[in-house]
């Protein structure tokens, strides 16, 4: 069985972001970019499944500008066998990404598609669900545990939901999106980084996959949240009640 993992190149989680002065988005020039942390978890899970003998190949895919290749190389260094880069400059929204992933799935025919639950730049949490809908595949999102059954061709997924944990059994092929507690991603070691240089990264275009980038969304403005005001130390409960009622208008 082949596993496909979709990974996204995002602003590194430790970077302090700034809004561009024209308010069209976040400043990304000269900023460190890395693989989305949830995508790292997704790739790690795929590698674990392959190492347990239940999968034969892990293919990492990524959409975006030319620099995505760096992120894919990190994925190859972690242990993916092949990578596919779909060249797509410009803004990409979840529905477009989902359509591209559907096209790639029809080409590669994996038994499992694993994604991170959301990207840390847009926090959409939509792509996994949309691609499952487009493919008409079962989905197990916010996975905190994944157990595959090769004979029954199914996956048992524990999902982290608001009320606790929900366990689903999905018939393969299926879509799984990963949550934080699923695993701890491995380091890309120096020898593996060196070996990754010779692993193939296939380049594909949107025309080849017959997907049209049609943006149904337009970003009107991006602003920083209002600066947090200084706290005030109050002298009595009455003062607190008064402030909550008359200043904050919450009671």
């Amino acid at each position: 069985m082949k596993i496909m993992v979709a990974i996204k190149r995002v602003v590194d989680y430790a970077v302090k972001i700034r809004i561009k002065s024209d308010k069209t988005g976040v400043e990304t020039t000269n900023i460190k970019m890395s693989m989305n942390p949830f995508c790292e978890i997704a790739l790690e899970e795929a590698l674990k499944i392959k190492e347990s003998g239940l999968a034969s190949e892990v293919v990492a895919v990524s959409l975006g500008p030319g620099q995505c290749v760096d992120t894919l190389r990190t994925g190859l260094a972690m242990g993916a066998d092949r990578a596919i880069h779909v060249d797509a400059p410009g803004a990409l929204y979840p529905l477009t990404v989902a359509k591209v992933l559907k096209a790639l799935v029809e080409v590669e025919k994996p038994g499992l598609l694993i994604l991170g639950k959301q990207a840390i730049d847009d926090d959409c949490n939509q792509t996994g669900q949309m691609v499952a809908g487009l493919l008409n595949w079962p989905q197990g999102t916010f996975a905190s545990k994944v157990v595959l059954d090769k004979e029954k061709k199914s996956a048992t997924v524990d999902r982290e939901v608001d009320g606790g944990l929900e366990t689903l059994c999905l018939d393969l092929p299926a879509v799984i999106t990963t949550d934080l507690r699923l695993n701890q991603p491995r380091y890309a070691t120096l020898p593996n980084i060196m070996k990754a240089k010779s692993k193939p990264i296939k380049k594909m275009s949107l025309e080849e996959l017959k997907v049209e980038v049609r943006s149904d969304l337009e970003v009107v403005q991006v602003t920083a949240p209002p600066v947090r005001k200084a706290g005030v130390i109050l002298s009595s409960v009455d003062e607190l009640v008064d402030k909550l009622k008359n200043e904050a208008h919450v009671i």
Partner: protein
Amino acid sequence: MFKKIISLGSKSNWTQYSLIRNGFTRRRFSSEAARECINYDVVIVGGGPAGLSAAIRLKQLCRENDVDLSVCVVEKGAEVGAHILSGNVFEPRALNELIPKWREEEAPISVGVSSDKFLLLTKKHAVPMPNPFDNKGNYVISLSQFTRWLGQKAEELGVEVYPGFAAKEVLFDEDENVIGIATNDMGIGKDGSKKDTYQPGVELKGRVNLFAEGCRGSLSEKIIRKYDLRKKGQGQHQTYALGIKEVWEVDADKHKPGDVLHTLGWPLDHKTYGGSFLYHMQDRQVAIGLVCALNYHNPFFNPYEEFQNLKRHPAIRPLLENGTVLQYGARTLNEGGFQSIPYPVFPGGAIVGCSAGFLNVPKIKGTHTAMKSGMLAAESAFGVLHKGSNMKTYWESLKTSWIWEELHRARNYRPAFEYGLLPGMAISALEHYLLKGRVPYTLKHGKPDHEATHEASRCSPIEYPKPDGIVSFDVPTSLYRSNTNHDHDQPTHLRLRDPKVPELVNLPKYAGPESRYCPARVYEYVSDDNGQLKLQINAQNCLHCKACDIKDPKQNIEWTVPEGGGGPGYSVM
């Protein structure tokens, strides 16, 4: 040999102290599984201007001579440039030699110095002074950006650059020759146990090994001690300063690209050497910083707070008032100059850049000399690998290069300030306008920085005003702007040679100076359950500046590399 192995494994404090003092590695005990070993012709530790210039020069020589050498650069920062911080007014002398077509190759060097001013600050005033600097033909740049570009150039030439990997250990053969380095084991928990993600470090063995770790490089210091390189060189100890810097984005009408300003005097007193810089870069960005020599006397001195004071000065404040801070950081720099250059060659390789110490103090520039030293070491290394010559040619070529001539001419400026600010300025003026270093004497440095701190009982605490949140900030706010991060679940990389010294010596005798000079609030004295003050080390905050390694009065704090990829994330510094 057998006895040595026994002592390597012993856990007594004294043995650990002497082990580290003598620079021995605990190779046999740091990883049981055999580490993977990769061989290169040249291994370079540190992806800064010196290391990358050496790598580029090696590949250029290969092309000129139609041979190939495998060159590997390991860099502890998450990406090339992440740990690079500098003023920086760049003198392109070495770059012109290394990559003459740097303009066509789109080096991020575009803002020429347009004006050059020098002020003497008092608490409320700013007195214009004759400018001692000559920055014609120089550029205001971000060294972090420039280093990133240099890294790309190196990779284009075939250099293998590996950011995110920290060189932890020097590897020796039976004859005590350096044969390479080993990177950190990754995935070790705070308690020392192996986590699920454990990966052993990797050994990188080079026929020639160049150390380009920057000022007070952790492995370079071990090598200097082991082979006694200070005595074999110019003889004096190295002296240092701590530079704390911010890059601001200011109003367009206040921004003048290429404007260069230096100040002396306030907020520092007449016994503390140092000064500030303010450089206008491009894109409305302004670099501002304060450099304080680390041989200050008062243990209550707090370089970070002095920097906040600087920004409050009426000559500085208006520029910053409506602006935003983009990044913050700190790094130590060498001030020893000519007198402190160690003999930089050892069996198996050499030391380049600020790890040796080629900064020109009166010019306050070290990038050009660091790059040139890397190039000279590369030429020597090429001779060693291709023609069978000796690395000693590096020392010889240093002594006949413009680095030597420049540092020799500049050698008496900094030591003159041992006599105080005014005598120092007078002697500097004499040197600058008249003598230009053409005197038979060479002034000596004062005490090593860590010995210069007076006891707290002899000094008075300094009151620093609270941050206003507009031009002055508290440490956590500033630290957030440095994009610093380390995986918290790893052993602390700041080692105390004797864990009892902070509470027995630093706190009672010197009032815990590390809680004041560290620009990242790594060291804090907090009360434990019994009300006793204990040292708490917040290693996750560390900016890798090395001030603690330099200034700790008993030299009890040893800075070692944390897991690769951690530390600050400078991009415009």
